């Protein structure tokens, strides 16, 4: 899943005929000033300015300003750009036309196991959350498009009346077209509003999640995907991501501030069980990491260096199940190099390392890890006969 910020999200909706407010995304006040000279609506309409970043609760943070004239929008942009919120620096502001409206509605399309589901409600904004039973659904099998009749029926069920029945049905139909053609996994407009000037339905705010795996058939996806959990990626996370994009197999790394148990496990499935074991034992994860698919040793080495650099760690869990084809000697070679490098830089003082692994060339790999003891590492090594997550129990009991 790949989250897309409001600007590109609105762009995709516009492409499929959904009315969206006029908007511009700028990275400086100068840019906005220039756009103001070229776009009438910026001078004529009331405006909304929002920090264009993957940030939760922007309103509370003062990163959303409404009812502005162009001058005020410039001032708001100036104030927002460069503001630091946690690990995120605001670099973009989206300035859009304010749409005066009375009624708010809700429309979404989401991926389901069999196909997709269109959701419509006759209420919108924060009202939807508390009135979830008012959301009506139309389920669609994969490859099936909604008929005009079915959409109108849905619209009626959701409580729309008069000309709005057809309007909402059409709006939902366009949402589905956008969802289906753009390989979306989740598309939500909340609220959908009736524009006072012409009575048309307009998408005011959009949540767009696309299927990153389908990027190969969308050459027009020229925007970056946003971080998915409300903060920007750290420098180390970005570096590991760039390694990941270059290699066969994969390396993944997410920092979790404040933890003391560092994770360096193998395999997408096992890694989560290792993290579960830490949490179940009352430990505090310092990160989530994983390598899999027989990555090259240098990539595992980079990952190891990042993990050794995490502040305040007490244990490193080098866990893993019995690999199918990941070469244990080679990948452990990368980890060992990373450990040595970290040690030579004065890191890993007082850090205990716990190893459990199986798979191709497991004996040689585990022997190489064991040999690190002679180099002064505090390392304990187990093989396949020790149950998967027992090293976590031992690590956390030992503290």
């Amino acid at each position: 899943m790949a989250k897309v910020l409001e600007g590109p999200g609105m762009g995709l909706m516009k492409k499929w005929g959904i009315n969206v407010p006029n908007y511009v995304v700028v990275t400086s006040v100068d840019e906005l000033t220039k756009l103001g000279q070229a776009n009438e609506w910026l001078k004529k309409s009331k405006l909304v300015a929002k920090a264009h970043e993957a940030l939760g609760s922007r309103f509370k943070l003062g990163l959303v300003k409404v009812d502005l004239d162009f001058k005020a929008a410039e001032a708001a942009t100036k104030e927002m750009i460069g503001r630091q919120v946690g690990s995120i620096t605001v670099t973009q502001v989206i300035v859009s036309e304010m749409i005066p409206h009375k009624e708010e509605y809700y429309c979404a399309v989401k991926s389901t196991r069999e196909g997709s589901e269109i959701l419509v409600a006759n209420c919108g904004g924060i009202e939807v959350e508390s009135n979830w039973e008012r959301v009506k659904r139309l389920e669609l099998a994969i490859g099936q498009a909604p008929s005009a009749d079915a959409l109108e029926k849905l619209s009626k069920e959701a409580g729309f009346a008069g000309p709005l029945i057809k309007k909402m049905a059409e709006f939902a139909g366009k949402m589905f077209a956008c969802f289906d053609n753009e390989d979306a996994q989740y598309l939500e407009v909340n609220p959908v509003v009736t524009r006072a000037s012409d009575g048309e339905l307009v998408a005011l705010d959009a949540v767009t999640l696309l299927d990153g795996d389908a990027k190969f058939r969308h050459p027009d996806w020229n925007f970056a995907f946003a971080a998915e959990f409300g903060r920007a990626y750290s420098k180390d996370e970005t570096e590991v991501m760039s390694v990941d994009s270059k290699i066969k197999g994969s390396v993944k790394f997410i920092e979790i501030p404040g933890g003391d148990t560092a994770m360096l496990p193998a395999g997408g499935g096992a890694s989560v069980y290792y993290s579960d074991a830490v949490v179940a034992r009352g430990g505090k994860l310092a990160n989530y990491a994983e390598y899999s698919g027989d990555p090259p040793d240098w990539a595992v080495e980079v990952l190891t260096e990042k993990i050794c650099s995490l502040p305040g760690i007490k244990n490193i869990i080098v866990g893993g199940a019995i690999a199918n084809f990941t070469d244990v000697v080679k990948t452990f070679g990368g980890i060992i190099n990373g450990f040595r490098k970290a040690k030579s830089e004065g890191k890993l003082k007082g850090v205990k390392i716990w190893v459990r692994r199986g798979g191709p060339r497991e004996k040689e790999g585990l022997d190489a890890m064991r040999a690190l003891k002679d180099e002064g590492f505090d390392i304990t090594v187990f093989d396949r006969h020790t149950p998967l997550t027992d090293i976590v129990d031992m690590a956390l009991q030992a503290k």
Partner: protein
Amino acid sequence: MSILANKDTYVVIQGGVAGVNAARRMAEFCYLIKRSLNVLAFVYPPDAGKSNEIPYGSGLVAVPVYKTIAEATKNHPQINTSLVYIGADRAMKGGMEALDDSHIKVVSMITEGVPEKDAKILGAHARKLGKVFNGPSSIGIVSAGSCRLGVIGGAFDNLVLSKLYREGSFGVITKSGGLSNEIIWICSQFADGITTAIGIGGDAYPGTDYVSYLEMFENDPQTKAVVIVGEMGGDLEERAAEWYGAKKRRIKLMAVVSGFCQESLPKGMKFGHAGAKEGMKGEGSARSKSDALKKAGAIVPATFGALGPAIKETYQELLKSGQVKEPVEPASLPKLPKSIEAAMKADEVMVTPLIRTTISDDRGEEPCYDGYPASELINKGYEVPHVIGLLWDKRLISKQDAEIVKRIMMLSADHGPCVSGAYATILAACAGIGLSQSVAAGMIMIGPRFGGAVTDAGRFFKYAVDNKMSVDEFLVYMKKNHGPVPGIGHRVKSLRNPDKRVKELVGYVKSLNIKTPCLDFALAVEQVTAAKKDNLILNVDGTMAAVLVDIGFPVDSLNGFFILSRTIGLIGHWVDQKRQDGRLIRLFDYLVNYAAPKRREVPPLK
């Protein structure tokens, strides 16, 4: 018995290198259980018409590659299963092609990163046809004792350790490749092993769900219990729970679900497989899945670590109730033949090497010349002449000697189009022959009369110096035993028309104030011969030879200097002709003296 794969499963693999690698792993399993290779064909259009060689035991099986599934199944009607290893952007087309073939009943997709929509279309299409679409992102399917599809089960040693050579009583369904091996291993340690283990794939919406497989296991009398390894996200586990709780089931269900850590991690964090994503409003969480499974009567250990003992307990109950009997292990199992490399590493065989080398080695991360890494030589300022020194004489020559070698190379790089070598190259180039062949044509001209006198010149000057001969003694010795002195004499140059190149080289070497006994002797010889006839001067070959012997190069390497430097010129001539599109050369009649008999009548054949 088993589900999905058995002794009658025959496979076509769609894909290139990854598919061939999988076929090798499958061949290892076939060898272990003593069945013939179950991969009958590949479909990979770029290689269509060729075959892939798959090691089986100590032999090789050639498996044909076809352009389409239809061709593969037409030639091998036993094929009933396809494994898809092609890239994510073409995977759907490949999967469809396989599903639409009437011979194929099961398609298992190993490809990762397949768009969700494509996977759903494939899944729906398979259901419509009453077939199984497993995956994507599946590690494979293995039925103990009968069939392996893909790399599931890992390396050969692991197949043996996990007792996959014979059937047990536990079915396994997992989303994760590594964990499938872990569970298979646990089942073989704490119980009697598995019937079938299925990698369902780590994506959010795999083509098949747990329930379909649970139904199949329920109908397989050999399977007594099924272990599910689940994770947060989606609703496959809840559906499995619903199925299990709906009525009394023959099989016991055991399950673990990962993702409890999510409760104490930053919200929205994505980890694990693509399918492992946060559900809305608590649905799809590890906890709700575990609770649903428990409620339905499944055995759900608190941690992954507790799964082993739980499996053991279940197995003991099955034993006690007489539903299973202790398995009988076979007396012996086939051992995978070791490769020569592995056997040598283990000191088990000794091989007499075919050739011996003493100058270079490229087995490490870069080539070493006489032990020195090439990049280090470059970075420390060494140049081409030093590489020549290392490879031709196994020594690191001095800066001064390197300068001499460099000058020799430059002076002999090319001597115009009319000399034998260049002419032959041009002739070949104009006949449309390629670079290496044309250069080789010029190269074979090198011999005693053209550029190939360097070695002999060096040999005889050295002989004279070593034996302290006078010039006269030397000339007599040469006349009596060998003929004209190599390195002396020139076709166009003479005393009155001296060779600037020789003058230059001699002048430079002399200016260095080094000992040059051979050069001195050669010059003394020239004094005498040139006095007899003015073109009997010391030529470039002779000068090079004398100097190179003086700075210590072995006599046998000397022609090499000419060959190497003149290659530069020959390549130049070829490129030159190519660039100007030189036309085919035919010798003019007037350049030939036709000394053959005049036309006459052919006598009748007797």
